[in-house]
């Protein structure tokens, strides 16, 4: 039978029929349905299992507060666990499966837990499973982990795209029910920039679920008209399927737009969801209210539902959840549910009203002062047991029971700044507190005003007030006529007596007994209650259960509800897909690439690239026949040392420093002296942090009287620039210094090796003989008429230059150099060979510049001038940092040339046990030196400067290897620097 519970009416498009499946069974539904409404229309109440006891569960609600009806939506890599069937929009071909049940939803083996419930009380696991200790990981925990969890991820990459964006507005209105629509209309008509966001796919909020009239027409029709008017306003942006997830500082709100979730697959190029950051000057929370249940025995069966949800399914979706319906209420709104259902032709068998007083409803069995004490029906409600005012009990056959314990304003977002909501005795609910997010006010049910008129009036009034704050005059116009019924409610939280369980948090299976146990064990603060029982920690974050739970605790401790207080409401309002929060920043697009000027050329050569921060640099460039990276690297090193090699060093930071105080400025930011640097020369400089630790190094060239070009390490280019700006703006604001980064403006290549000059001379337009361009010289030249810069500096220990041309010519320059270098067998070397040569030469780099080492540690202590005040100078002299037995940079060679070294190995003396007391330091960088024919390394060794020539062990306890090593000078190669000056 198809759609056996579908009744007339509702906002569904019956002209189209869609097929969908749940657990492999095919059903029919219509556009406008949710998965839950369509399943209910087909007579399916059982949709899930609870977390702990694996109790059968059907939907409790008709909205995003749903704790029970969680399914796995879609299949394959798009499988989406824990999806609330109550908000999943139906589409043709939708597939859903049940979760947390095995072998089937109807027969779940883990329901054994339900039989054993008396053992599985709140926190029982804290009291047992402790012996023997090793059994926790091996036995108990694996069982618990397999049983726990809800839905499953497939472990496949999410195939959908996600997007992000930024929106700006005068007024953000959260929720498009009567209050939100009224606020948006008021603000829109006043010309303000308005964003109206609603989580539903249809605006109107509760009006869509009601038969109430607004302005003489059905509320849903009035909402349609309001939306039509708003959509014609260019200053108003309407966002359906958009959940505002959190209030952040200074009027910034996060919102998730479900762009494609109502489609089988997103359209080509379209994201599944978009994360919007909304920058609002003012915001109105019009997010409505959520009905709450009453706790009574076995109140968790499929078919037991919030009364307002029963009404919504009937009015909005044309679904009668059951053929015989009862309603249990403590307030007038429950009566409205009963009457609406009756009006739709549903058989209302009893209205159980906890209130003793008041009028009786016409035409239905209205039991005053009564309560529901139990229910029956294993996989779905079959009957309800009622205790009447006189104490008599009676069991009534019913397939649906609507429960209304009152309505909780949705204060969540107003409490995201940790403001505490305030108890409102009139509605028996919490309303937003005074100290919520600045700029945010609440209207309508969210503010505790539960009538339609109150919502319309509140929305309008709050919009007028918010815009007045901004200097925008908005008119409080005539409001459409709407019901304005007062709230009539008596507190009724739970039904006492009975031995069974009464659920408060149905997903996590927290019952009245658990709260009582928590109180007995003195977990009676609400935070302890939550943490001990897991109340409100399920996927619904306690939207229906929290207030109920704390009201029960209040009753047990004899405190009032406001004294008991609430736990903290946290973002997000409803759970958000991780993909949405990440947006496009994933896979290869996690971070942008930075490509060097020679990248294209290197790609053509088959270079192997390596990530250096965001840069991709050539690591080595294999030649035909080379099968191991070491062959390539050795060749590159040897060729450079023998003749000439070229390396793209564009990634080094370059900063242009000008101004009449530039020299004095450099003296402040470098530890060593720069004032004495002559025009046309470069100097190596050491930069300290204020704590005296070295954080960067590089060469700076004086290109003119007041013009310098500084280079930094690749890693610290941004940090150095930031620190220079700090020094010039904050520390020494009267200095005449101007800064600009030129890192990317120039393509820079190192040309190193005995034939470097010969090669360059073929390419550049000027004389660069030793006389014209001496060691550490710097100047402007040209290459084929293109302006260029030349620096005679070396990182490799060879006669070397760095030549720079405007970046667009970088590709041409590397090709030119290789062409001109043919006669010298010039090669391009990558970062590995660069590393080999710098270790051979004993230059410090990233592994030595570890943020923990001083100039003294590096053997560069004399560079720190004490004759001037530079950053870091004073504190570099603290006693612990000038310890003569502290770490010193040393060279390390295996005693047996075949011995292998590993960076990160630690130094131990011969015979010393591998314990920390004997730790001598560690190897920082290790390379194979083809020049020396063995592994070599740099290391920090305690009192290393006193241990040159000594033999020790380099121990790698991870690999259980050790190598006997000789401690040597870190300058393995040409320690006198003769080649540099060649």
């Amino acid at each position, binding site marked *: 039978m198809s759609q056996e519970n579908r009744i007339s009416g509702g906002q569904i498009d019956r002209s189209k029929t869609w097929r969908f499946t749940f657990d492999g069974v095919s059903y029919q539904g219509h556009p406008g349905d949710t998965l839950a409404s369509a399943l209910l229309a087909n007579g399916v109440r059982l949709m899930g299992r609870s977390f702990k006891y694996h109790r059968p569960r059907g939907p409790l609600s008709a909205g995003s507060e749903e704790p029970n009806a969680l399914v796995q939506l879609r299949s394959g890599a798009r499988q989406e666990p824990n999806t609330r069937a109550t908000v999943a929009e139906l589409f043709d071909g939708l597939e859903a499966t049940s979760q947390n049940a095995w072998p089937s939803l109807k027969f779940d083996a883990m329901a054994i837990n339900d039989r054993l419930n008396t053992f599985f009380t709140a926190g029982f696991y804290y009291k047992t499973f402790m012996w023997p200790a090793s059994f926790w990981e091996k036995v108990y925990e694996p069982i618990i982990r397999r049983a726990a969890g809800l839905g499953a991820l497939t472990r496949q990459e999410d195939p959908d795209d996600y997007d992000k964006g*930024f929106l700006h507005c005068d007024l953000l209105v959260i929720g498009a029910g009567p209050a939100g629509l009224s606020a948006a209309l008021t603000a829109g008509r006043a010309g303000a920039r308005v964003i109206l966001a609603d989580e539903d796919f249809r605006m109107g909020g509760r009006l869509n679920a009601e038969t109430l009239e607004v302005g003489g027409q059905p509320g849903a029709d009035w909402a349609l008209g309001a939306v039509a008017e708003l959509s014609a306003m260019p200053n108003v942006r309407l966002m359906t399927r958009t959940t505002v997830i959190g209030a952040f500082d200074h009027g910034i709100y996060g919102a998730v737009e479900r762009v494609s979730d109502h489609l089988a697959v997103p359209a080509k190029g379209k994201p599944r969801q978009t994360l919007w*950051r909304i920058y609002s000057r003012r915001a109105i929370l019009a997010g409505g209210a959520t009905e709450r249940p009453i706790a009574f025995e076995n109140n968790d069966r499929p078919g037991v539902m919030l009364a307002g949800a029963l009404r919504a399914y009937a009015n909005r979706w044309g679904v009668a959840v059951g053929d015989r319906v009862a309603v249990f209420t403590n307030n007038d709104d429950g009566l409205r549910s009963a009457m609406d259902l009756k009006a739709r032709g549903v058989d209302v068998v009893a209205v159980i009203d906890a209130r003793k007083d008041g009028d009786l409803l016409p035409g239905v069995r209205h039991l005053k002062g009564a309560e529901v004490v139990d229910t029956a029906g294993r996989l779905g409600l079959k009957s309800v047991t009622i205790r009447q005012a006189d104490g008599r009990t009676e069991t009534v056959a019913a397939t649906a029971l609507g429960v209304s314990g009152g309505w909780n304003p949705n204060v969540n977002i107003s409490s995201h700044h940790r403001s505490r909501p305030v108890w409102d005795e009139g509605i028996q609910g919490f309303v937003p507190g005074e100290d919520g997010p600045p700029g945010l006010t609440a209207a309508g049910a969210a503010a505790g005003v539960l009538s339609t008129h109150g919502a319309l009036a509140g929305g309008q009034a709050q919009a007028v007030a918010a815009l007045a704050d901004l200097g925008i005059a908005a008119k409080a116009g005539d409001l459409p006529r709407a019901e304005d019924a007062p709230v009539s409610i008596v507190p009724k939280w739970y039904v006492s007596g009975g031995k069974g369980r009464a659920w408060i948090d149905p997903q996590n299976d927290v019952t009245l007994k658990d709260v009582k146990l928590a109180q007995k064990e003195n977990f009676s603060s609400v935070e302890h209650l939550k943490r001990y029982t897991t109340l409100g920690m399920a996927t619904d974050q306690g939207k229906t259960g929290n207030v109920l739970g704390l009201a029960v605790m209040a009753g047990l401790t004899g405190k009032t509800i406001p004294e008991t207080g609430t736990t903290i409401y946290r973002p997000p309002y409803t759970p958000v897909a991780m993909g949405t929060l990440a947006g496009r920043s994933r896979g290869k*697009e996690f971070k*942008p690439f930075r490509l060097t000027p020679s990248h294209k050329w290197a790609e053509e050569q088959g270079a192997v690239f390596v990530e250096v921060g965001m*840069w991709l640099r050539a690591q080595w460039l294999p030649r035909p026949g080379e099968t191991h990276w070491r062959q390539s690297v050795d060749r590159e090193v040897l060729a450079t040392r023998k003749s000439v090699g070229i390396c793209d060093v564009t990634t080094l930071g370059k900063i242009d420093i000008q101004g*009449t105080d530039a020299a004095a400025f450099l003296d402040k930011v470098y530890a060593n002296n720069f004032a004495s640097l002559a025009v046309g020369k470069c100097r190596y400089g050491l930069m300290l942090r204020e704590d005296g630790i070295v954080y960067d190094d590089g060469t700076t060239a004086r290109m003119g009287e007041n013009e310098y070009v500084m280079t930094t390490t690749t890693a610290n280019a941004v940090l150095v620039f930031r620190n220079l700006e700090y020094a010039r703006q904050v520390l020494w604001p009267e200095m005449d210094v101007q800064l600009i980064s030129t*890192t990317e403006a120039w393509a820079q290549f190192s040309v190193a090796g005995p034939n470097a000059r010969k090669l360059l001379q073929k390419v550049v337009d000027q004389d660069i003989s030793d006389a014209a361009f001496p060691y550490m010289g710097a100047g402007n030249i040209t290459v084929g008429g293109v302006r260029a810069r030349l620096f005679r500096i070396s990182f490799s220990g060879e006669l070397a230059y760095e030549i720079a041309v405007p970046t667009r010519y970088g*590709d041409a320059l590397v090709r030119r150099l290789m062409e001109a270098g043919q006669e010298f067998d010039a090669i391009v070397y990558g970062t590995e060979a660069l590393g080999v040569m710098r270790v051979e030469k004993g230059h410090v780099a990233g592994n030595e510049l570890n943020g923990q080492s001083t100039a003294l540690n590096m053997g560069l202590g004399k560079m720190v001038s004490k004759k001037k005040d530079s950053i870091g100078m004073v504190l570099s002299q603290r006693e612990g940092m000038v310890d003569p037995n502290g770490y010193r940079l040393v060279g390390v060679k295996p005693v047996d040339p075949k011995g292998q070294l590993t960076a990160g190995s630690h130094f131990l003396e011969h015979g010393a046990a591998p314990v920390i007391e004997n730790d001598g330091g560690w190897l920082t960088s290790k390379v194979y030196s083809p020049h020396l024919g063995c592994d070599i390394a740099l290391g920090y060794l305690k009192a290393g400067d006193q241990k040159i020539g000594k033999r020790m062990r380099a121990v790698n306890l991870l690999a259980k290897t050790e190598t006997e090593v000789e401690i040597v000078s870190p300058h393995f190669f040409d320690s006198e620097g003769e080649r540099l000056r060649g």
Partner: protein
Amino acid sequence: MADTLHALTALGQAAPQTHQVGPYRIEERFDVALASVAIRKGRAADVTRAAQAAGIPLPEAARFAAGNPYSAFWVAPEMWFVEAPFATHEDIVAAVKPLFGDAASITEQTDAWVRFDLSAPDLGPLMERLCNVDFATAPDGFATRTVIEHIGCYLIRHTAGAVTLYGARSSAKSLLHCLEVTAAAVI
């Protein structure tokens, strides 16, 4: 003198490319020279005078001003980026420096950036997904630094339908990729 060197665009091509995604046109520009001009301490009046004499606009904060041959936009207190046609001003520092003498610090910036000119009947829907600039209310001539998918950029709004982006040159391909996929998601 050896042969001159041939240039590549930031996207690694001999000539700039134009990409069209629906109504969105993304045009790489390779024909604009760029230099920073920063006022030396206490020389604001000299710089203003020299700029006026040379016809170099020095707009107020967060603004771009067009001129011929020089246009300029503000980048920092007492600092502007000055644009000029590359064909005539390839060595833009050599051209600009004499105009200011020692009153300003001038630095070449041409190749530090990739420039994309974006155009469409309305760039709003694209811009709101790209960066945190209130594009709809920004006036024409608005110039700002912003971040697009982790890449620092300068954005100049010429009109609602015409924008110039200067992004870090080394990330030109990543930036273009972002512009293209975002545009595809909007159309």
